[in-house]
């Protein structure tokens, strides 16, 4: 048995049967990272020593017959915006190039408690702002299905790493599709949980009311296992919700009382949807019907407003969340902040230092969103933009509430297009923003969504299908995803390249 090809279940079986140890598994992934990451740029400055040490400790405990956690010995890679004590956590920004948090994110504590082995940190768009991993200060991650192409973003490194078997599973974060879209573009499973299901403590904030940490895996069971570990109320995050955490893995194979009701929103099939993606979605609907589900058309009439609303709310919160990076206490500090223009001569040195530090520390996309967010919150504009966007957000939530009165899950595309070429959209922010058209609404509404492999294009690129469910209905969502996965073999396809 080869740990590299295994799902989490496969790894746990391998550990239990003695087919391989955790140390051997970690070494296999470390070797694979060593061999292939140069092409993919998915994992950042990985040193396996600490992971191997952790793995050996787990192996020793296993040998002594100790009770081990549900992810004992399982390697997991972490997006570079989730804090780990003493480890670099840079958000792939020059601004945080030297930030080593003095604390662990709650999800990291929970992973440690569950026996998981942290494999390393993963490339991402700068501060999670981007849909292609191209805004990273460490350069773009590459899609293992075609190295010319982007793995999507912002959790591009996580998706690429899991797709290329550099890690069996990974944690990403999803603010407008940043887990689901790269999962779709790389042919892996990516889950964005309900807002409040997973603690955000230790996730470097992009847009606090939208951000949610979630797992990547090769199959639905992988993300169910990780979710069971990381979900739950955290006193350190007031927005985490106090609800029981069910056994999501058990939910996968449970038999519901009545057939699954799948909704297909009329609005999904609009301009901009790639025909091959559209046919994959229609095929997926047929698969669900063949599996005994009912499929009906629903409407999400306000979904067309989701992108404008999203690109007001998210930058507004980001402009405030990122205000702290000014070079005073932390963040990159410019060495030269002498006045460059006459206007700057009148400014206090402190302000000039902040301005120069921010100008140097942030890349263009982050700068664009900070400016956008600052504008939409400004006096005289807030009512027209920010307040209006909050109203739209409410309407979008209402749309979902109405739809979920009649269906259990909503089926649709994750991304309107399959993986695109690196550089193709970077110069056109609007085209990049439109990639979030199918994923942004779930963040605005706070509901869970999952992307799973649902086909390949003629040219051999993965197509993701998305399922969405009501808030805290992750069991239903995962069960539905498992129904599709059981009936298809798309999740077994791996990129031939590496």
């Amino acid at each position: 048995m080869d740990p590299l090809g295994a799902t989490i279940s496969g790894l746990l079986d391998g550990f239990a049967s003695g087919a391989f140890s955790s140390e051997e598994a970690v070494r296999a992934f470390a070797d694979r990272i060593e061999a292939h990451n140069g092409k993919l740029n998915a994992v950042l400055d990985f040193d396996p020593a600490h992971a191997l040490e952790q793995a050996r400790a787990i192996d020793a405990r296993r040998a002594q017959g100790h009770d081990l956690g549900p992810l004992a010995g399982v390697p997991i890679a972490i997006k570079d915006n989730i804090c780990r004590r003493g480890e670099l956590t840079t958000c792939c920004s020059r601004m945080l190039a030297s930030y080593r948090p003095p604390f662990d994110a709650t999800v990291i504590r929970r992973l440690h408690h569950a026996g998981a082995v942290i494999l390393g940190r993963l490339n991402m768009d700068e501060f999670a702002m981007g849909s292609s991993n191209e805004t990273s200060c460490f350069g773009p991650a590459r899609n293992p299905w075609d190295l010319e192409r982007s793995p999507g973003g912002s959790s591009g490194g996580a998706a690429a790493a899991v797709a290329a078997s550099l890690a069996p599973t990974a944690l990403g974060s999803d603010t407008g599709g940043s887990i689901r879209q790269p999962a779709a573009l790389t042919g892996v499973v990516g889950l964005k949980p309900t807002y409040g299901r997973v603690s955000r403590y230790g996730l470097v904030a992009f847009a606090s009311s939208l951000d949610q940490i979630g797992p990547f895996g090769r199959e639905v069971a992988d993300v169910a296992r990780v979710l069971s570990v990381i979900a739950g109320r955290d006193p350190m995050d007031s927005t985490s919700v106090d609800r029981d955490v069910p056994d999501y893995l058990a939910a996968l194979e449970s038999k519901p009382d009545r057939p699954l009701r799948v909704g297909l929103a009329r609005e999904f099939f609009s301009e901009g949807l790639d025909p091959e993606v559209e046919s994959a979605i229609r095929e997926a609907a047929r698969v669900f019907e063949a599996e005994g589900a009912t499929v009906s058309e629903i409407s999400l009439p306000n979904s067309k407003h989701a992108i404008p609303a999203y690109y007001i709310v998210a930058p507004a919160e980001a402009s405030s969340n990122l205000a702290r990076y000014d070079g005073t206490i932390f963040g990159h500090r410019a060495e030269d902040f002498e006045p460059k223009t006459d206007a700057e001569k009148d400014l206090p040195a402190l302000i000039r230092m902040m301005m120069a530090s921010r100008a140097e520390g942030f890349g263009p996309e982050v700068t664009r969103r900070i400016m956008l967010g600052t504008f939409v919150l400004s006096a005289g504009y807030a009512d027209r933009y920010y307040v209006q966007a909050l109203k739209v957000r409410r309407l979008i939530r209402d749309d979902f509430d109405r739809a979920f009165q009649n269906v259990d899950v909503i089926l649709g595309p994750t991304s309107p297009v399959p993986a695109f070429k690196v550089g193709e959209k970077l110069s056109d922010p609007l085209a990049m923003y439109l990639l979030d058209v199918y994923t942004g609404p779930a963040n605005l509404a706070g509901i869970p969504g999952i992307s799973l492999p649902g086909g390949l294009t003629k040219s051999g690129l993965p197509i993701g299908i998305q399922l969405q469910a009501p808030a805290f209905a992750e069991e239903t969502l995962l069960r539905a995803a498992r129904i599709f996965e059981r009936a298809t073999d798309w999740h077994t396809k791996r990129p031939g390249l590496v």
Partner: protein
Amino acid sequence: MDYDIIIGLEIHVQLQTESKMFSACGTEFGLPPNTQTDPVSLGLPGTLPVMNGKAFDLALKTAIAFGADIARFTKWDRKNYYYPDLPKNYQISQYDLPFSTGGALPIPERKDGGGGGSVRLTRIHLEEDTGKMIHAAGGLSEVDLNRAGVPLLEIVTEPDLRDPADARGCLEELRLTLRYLGVSDCEMQEGSLRCDANVNLHITKDDGSKVATPIVEIKNMNSFSAVEKALRYEIERQFEKWKDDGLTIKDAPKETRGWSDPDGITKPQRQKETAADYRYFPEPDLVPVEVDDAWIARIREEIGELPMARRRRFESEYGLSPYDANVLVEQGQDVADYFDAVARETGEAKLASNWIQQDVLRVIKEKRLPLADFPVGPAALADLINRVKNKQLNTNQGREVLAAMIETGKPADAVIAEGGYGLIGDRDELAAVVAATIEANPKALDDLAGGKKKPEAVKGWLRGQVMKRTQGKADPQLVVELLEARLAELGH
């Protein structure tokens, strides 16, 4: 020309909590810079605020005590600005839905008969305090974040105050009330109570028409007397300035001036060129707070008798003078409680008041003791007062016994037994001492007969001699009576 003074206050009060408003680190004052910090109060990337429930309780207590309306739904907002006094570059505050609106602060009556009534409250909201900037010489600034994140109440009044003395009185009453409530220690020197004042004048011109002077916000007032002095100065300054340039509220924007205590003047402070745009929006890292009836009821139960009510009760229940009632109440709740206990135990409120004011308060002031550490509890003091009342001791003896009780911590009976205190209450015994004293001092009788000295002086001297012979143990009233009787027998 006459004018009305228009004053409104903006008061900041630090709440007395163990931990900060949104993080677990400590709040103790006066520690080395930046030692009361943690990842949350430093705003480290990845951290999140969590509301301090105790702080919210104290805030509710304050608002309820002043009769404010408590919002059933309140939320947090971010006030965005770039300044290193808060490392996040935003302050978590409350903008459009403060937890409390309305209510009123009492204005104490002044000795000159003015004052009284109350000043309406516009709103009270809760926020996190900012750090302290110390602008050192050479253009360098230092940042101390110990204060950053300490729970802070902002109390805004309507412009209802008409006299600087009332502004001061109202603040002093606020401090007393908040101390009774255990909400804050309100030390202006330490900054746990801070006050800015808005002031202008409504001038009635000789022709009967009215104008208002431009509003000035006075900052940097670090004591109650500074508040009163700064307002007095500013009123005078505004009136003179108006007489000079005639500028009214319509001609000039609001000005910010800082009070300089050593100079006794207000000085203009640097104005922001443009109005600050704080880009308020709801704080997404915190959930709104919903306050229900049960919560309000629980807090209401924790609110004891407030100073105003207590003064009135001391006057009506015990017949104390307004002066005495005030002295006892304004020492703080512990002293008022102590008095209540002694007065009830002895049934002698005036005696209790005298003993407490003249002895207990003097000693705790001299020894700088909190009342809780004063060795004589209310029951012990009541016991002593009862002995004086029952003539077991005279007042001087009582004082000596109390001094010994404070010194040794022993109860009155032990001190009396050890010190041989006690009054000679027996008529015959004392009559014998009186007779013997007169016999031993024939010159005194001569003086009385000779008329050279005033009889009262001679009698007083004889009383002293009797007390001397009894080592101070004679009941003074009985001595007077027996001395008069014996002198009468002797024909004087």
